[in-house]
């Protein structure tokens, strides 16, 4: 033994990083409780209903995994999960619904293509005008020309587009789908969500983290407004159904079996995502991401390109949300843009992540399934409690209850989600299954 080893303070000697693994007692207990809860739901509500609940929980688990890498791995707060989910759902619908011959058989696709070409030409012209200063045009004049050209061309293209979309609505109903397998739609949905995430992240990730939350909240409402009002593309409030499944549908196998097959299909996807994410988390890349989250300045001093890494992880999370949204949309077999609500598709996912354990993939999946079961079961419970309160109020005080008690009872769940978020942040900020921080000596 060398001299320095003898004189070294034992507290500072490096310990073996590969020490014996802790027995995962906490995980076992929590998942055991979850299993009991699932079995109880099966016993009470029947197999078809409970399997549907499990499939939806699995889809939410994909969304939650997307959010946990944004919030848990990198500390980015995405307040617009709903928008990315809706994009995924739209793509699943658009790719899988049968081809609408009333649209493709008419002159409308040509018209629509012409408008798209106009749009592309207009963009080229505006970009060209914004480069005029290279030809010696003074900069203020260049900006003026570009802005005026932009406004005029925008008005021209948008009025042409309005005419064509109105014609599509009147003659063909809506554009229809492409008649392809749904999984193509899921992948494209993920890519589209990733593209929107890139746009938002590119603008906001270099600034304060609050700005990302504001911008994502906004883009989610915009995506929803677009899908809701573009009747020519999505039939808007008229909704599109049924969406074909990639697996045999309920008509062939009955509800329970077909849903069980869909569930195993989803479970495989989750397993693949889980495996890849865990590899990434433990890889040097994951270490770098956590280093940036925990101490941005020192990571920058190490020469890491912080904004680029942040953008990577944000886009990755958005891709997962788009994918999960597509799978969820196909399973619901109904595309209803109005059904996308911030409460169900943003805050519920947020609760799943912060309750389960941000940054811990296993905890996130646990949180997703557990919170979804509670969420589903809270609906009859809230109605029951409200009925109880009404009958008590009528009996004791002669209180004349308003007629819309049912919708109000469901509003009480908003309150509960809000309370959960604030309570978890205060009393269990690391979630039920905290992220395991490795110490390397």
């Amino acid at each position, binding site marked *: 033994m060398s001299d320095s080893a003898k004189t070294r303070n034992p507290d500072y000697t490096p310990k073996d990083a590969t020490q014996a693994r802790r027995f995962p007692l906490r995980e076992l207990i929590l998942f055991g409780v979850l299993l009991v809860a699932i079995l109880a739901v099966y016993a009470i509500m029947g197999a078809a209903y409970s399997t549907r609940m499990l499939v939806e929980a699995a889809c939410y688990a994909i969304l939650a995994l997307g959010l946990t890498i944004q919030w848990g791995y990198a500390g980015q707060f995405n307040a617009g999960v709903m928008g990315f989910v809706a994009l995924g759902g739209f793509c699943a619908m658009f790719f899988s619904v049968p081809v609408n011959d009333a649209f493709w058989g008419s002159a409308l696709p040509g018209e629509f293509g012409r408008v798209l070409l106009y749009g592309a030409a207009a963009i080229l012209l505006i970009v060209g005008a914004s480069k005029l200063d290279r030809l010696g045009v003074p900069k203020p004049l260049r900006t003026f020309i570009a802005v005026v050209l932009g406004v005029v061309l925008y008005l021209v293209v948008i009025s042409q587009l309005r005419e064509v979309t109105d014609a599509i609505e009147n003659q063909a109903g809506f554009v229809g789908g492409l008649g392809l397998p749904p999984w193509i739609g899921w992948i494209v949905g993920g890519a589209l969500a990733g593209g929107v995430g890139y746009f938002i992240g590119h603008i906001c990730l270099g600034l304060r983290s609050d700005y990302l939350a504001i911008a994502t909240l906004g883009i989610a409402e915009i995506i929803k407004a677009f899908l809701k009002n573009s009747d020519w593309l999505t039939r808007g409030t008229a909704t599109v159904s049924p969406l074909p499944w990639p697996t045999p549908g309920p008509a062939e196998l009955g509800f329970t079996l077909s849903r069980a097959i869909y569930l195993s299909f989803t479970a495989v996807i989750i397993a693949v995502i889980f495996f890849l994410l865990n590899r990434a988390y433990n890889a040097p890349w994951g270490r770098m991401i956590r280093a940036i989250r925990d101490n941005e300045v020192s990571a920058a001093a190490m020469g890491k390109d912080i904004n680029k890494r942040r953008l990577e992880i944000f886009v990755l999370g958005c891709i997962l949300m788009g994918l999960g949204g597509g799978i969820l949309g196909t399973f619901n077999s109904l595309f209803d843009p109005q059904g996308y609500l*911030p409460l169900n598709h943003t805050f519920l996912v947020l609760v799943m992540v912060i309750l389960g354990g941000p940054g811990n993939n296993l905890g996130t999946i646990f949180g997703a399934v557990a919170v979804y079961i509670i969420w589903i079961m809270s609906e009859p419970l809230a109605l029951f409690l409200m009925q109880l309160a009404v009958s008590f109020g009528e009996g004791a005080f002669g209180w004349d209850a308003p007629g819309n008690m049912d919708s109000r009872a469901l509003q009480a769940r908003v309150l509960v989600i809000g309370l959960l978020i604030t309570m978890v942040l205060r009393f269990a900020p690391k979630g039920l299954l905290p992220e395991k921080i490795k110490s390397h000596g």
Partner: protein
Amino acid sequence: MNELAFFINNVVIAGSVSGSIYAIGAIGVTLIFSIMRFAHFAHADMMTFGAFMVLLLTTLFPAAGASIGVPTAVLMLPLAMLLTAALAVGIDKTFYKPLRAHGVKPIVLVIGSLGVTLILQGLIRLFSGTGGQSLYVDDRKEIFRLALPFEGARAPIVITEPQIYLFVITLLAVVALHLFLNRSRLGKAMRAMSDNPELAQASGINTNTIVAVTWMIAGALAAIAGTLLSLDVTFKPDLSFFLLLPIFAAAIVGGVGHPYGAIAGGFVVGFAETLAVFNWNVLLRPFSDSLPAWLELPSNLAFVGTEYKIVVPFFILVAILVWRPTGLFKGKVI
């Protein structure tokens, strides 16, 4: 000239109305941002809460306003401001203060404020139901029609009673805030704390008092904005997510932490919205004879349809974040 009246009704008046409301909301957001350093998402729900308090008080005493000749809702506004200020301080004590004491990152406070948003929304909807209700319970909404002093002007300029109250109260609130921030000792201490919290604390300013005062001002302003908005249209419990984006856009356009900038930003966003949804064909139609024959104007020349109104504040937000993230007036916090 009818077109001019139409333009004034749809752009000048409507823009000033939404601009004032966004401005008052954005002042509160920007004050909280400059003192507490986080984006307060529950602000729009504090606005709704203020309006709901007015609704409750008005339904309780529907005839109170008639005795002095103002709508009951306006009479109840100061009381609702007090209640909302108390609520804001209470929210801070229960939810934000423990988080601050833990020394969490500002973004955790943002998430906490989203939780508070949901709590407030749930409570308001539980008690008021989900439908819209008018704040004019017992009074009648006066509508003034002013004829334009031009030859051949048939269409009048239409302005309603709540809109006049809106302009007056906005002006009063802005002047009061200006005097408070520049003349009073507390206001100066607030500005000092927004510049440098440590230095302010070291020079003997009680930061807890400043935080409480900030919440009181923000709550009172939120009550004003919510009530005036609900007076102009109707009280709806689910306004918040549609108000949040314009208000934040206004605060960021004006430069975060900059109350006067927030006022300017509010009007920028408000007018941008109304200009974008205005059908410009109306103004061009009188000149259609002198336009060349090949130019056929489409009947709808609006930039965006009213259903896409929310795109406008988002576009402004993106533009300002790309070109000038500090805002027009150089806010301090980026």
